[in-house]
């Protein structure tokens, strides 16, 4: 029996090795490949679409390499796909960042700026980026197996997902207001936080992803 393969899509943006090493750590039996080869991605059993930095640069690189099309194909093929951080945002329809950018459009909704005058319920100013460990309330999807409600995950972002379909929201987080910390649509799952940097709980989510059959 050949071992399962997992492709971490490399489109030249930042550090993808953290995601890859966290996946190898939780699932040493699978072959994790950081790759920009379309054939390798197409052959993989699972796909992780990470992302850091500004969405404008990300989408430029994604389009140049034809990965928008490739990602749509992977999702349509029914294989488990996980978007992380800017990788999640890139799956929405459009982002306000970088003066407005059309994204891949696999999940309905917009990516919006937290704003310069974000406050908490008591009216105190909140810093942007939203950086650090915040509580996540989830919907019990298989990717949350073994993860308690209100577990803290590591976030770092200035833009948030405003989901258009409430039933696709797999988790929420509060920072100034409630936003989608995770989205789901069949075999597609996406998280705003960094599971690869979220210690035990983040590793558990990655372990769940590797074990997931793509059914909600």
């Amino acid at each position, binding site marked *: 029996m050949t071992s399962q393969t997992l492709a971490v899509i490399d489109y030249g943006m930042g550090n993808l090795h953290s995601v890859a090493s966290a996946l190898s750590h939780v699932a040493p039996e699978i072959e994790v490949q950081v790759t920009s080869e379309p054939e390798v991605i197409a052959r993989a059993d699972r796909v992780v679409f990470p992302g850091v930095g500004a969405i404008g640069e990300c989408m430029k690189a994604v389009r140049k390499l034809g990965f928008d099309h490739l990602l749509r194909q992977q999702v349509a093929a029914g294989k488990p796909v996980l978007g992380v951080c800017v990788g999640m945002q890139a799956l929405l329809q459009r982002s306000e960042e970088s003066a407005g950018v059309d994204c891949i459009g696999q999940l309905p909704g917009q990516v919006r700026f937290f704003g310069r005058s974000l406050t908490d319920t008591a009216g105190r100013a909140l810093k942007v980026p939203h950086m650090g460990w915040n*509580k996540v309330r989830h919907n019990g999807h298989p990717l949350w197996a073994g993860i308690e409600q209100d577990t803290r995950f590591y976030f770092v972002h200035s833009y948030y997902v405003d989901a258009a379909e409430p039933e696709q929201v797999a988790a929420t987080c509060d920072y100034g207001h409630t936003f989608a910390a995770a989205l789901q649509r069949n075999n597609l799952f996406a998280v705003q936080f960094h599971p690869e940097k979220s210690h035990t709980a983040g590793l558990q989510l990655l372990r769940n992803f590797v074990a997931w059959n793509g059914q909600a």
Partner: protein
Amino acid sequence: MALAKRIIPCLDVDNGRVVKGVNFVDIRDAGDPVEIAKRYDTAGADEITFLDITASHEGRDTTVHMVEKIAAEVFIPLTVGGGIRKVEDIRTMLNAGADKVGINSAAVSNPDFVKAAADRFGSQCIVVAIDAKQVNTPGETPRWEIFTHGGRKGTGIDAIDWAKRMTEYGAGEILLTSMDRDGTKNGFDLALTRAISDAVSVPVIASGGVGNLQHLVDGITEGGADAVLAASIFHFGEYTIPQAKAYMRERGIEVR
């Protein structure tokens, strides 16, 4: 408000070894950064900052390998600072597994470097490290200036103006060290921390002077910091990360 305040142990690393070594409770560590980072990770540290104080080129390569090893085994954010002068240095550290880089002297000598770095890699990974010293005479309104070269070289730049400018240039976070307090164990410069924290919209990490757990609390409640950085109180086993968190939690601070 549910975002936790962060506790960040800092490792000063020279040629691949943590300087002075680290003495955890009952465990004397010879100073291997990977082992030490793993222990802080297990203990519940929210991030780790790795400050490279190596001067030589060969030492730099050692640092890159260390960062790679830490990143392969530690699954919390890692910031690497010290000697980051070019876009290429940032790329090297991010590729090695750092999540953020700290820029200090290079920002002072070439502020546009911060802009270029943020445009290229995103603000989320650009930490501008500010070393500030109080320069007013007693009785005057407090004023702080930026110092470089480990606090030896004054620049005449006002610390508050500088923090604002660096944020405008794309810094995603400010690591603020009081050169007056660093190493004293007398606590953070709270007036400085408050002034900078109120002046900028990005998170501020307070650094320099922690001698006990109340100092960590003060940095957050009085200084307005989003995170607190400390080295010696954790390195020498005076306090553990769980003790620090319990103490902060008892005083109403949200911690992870």
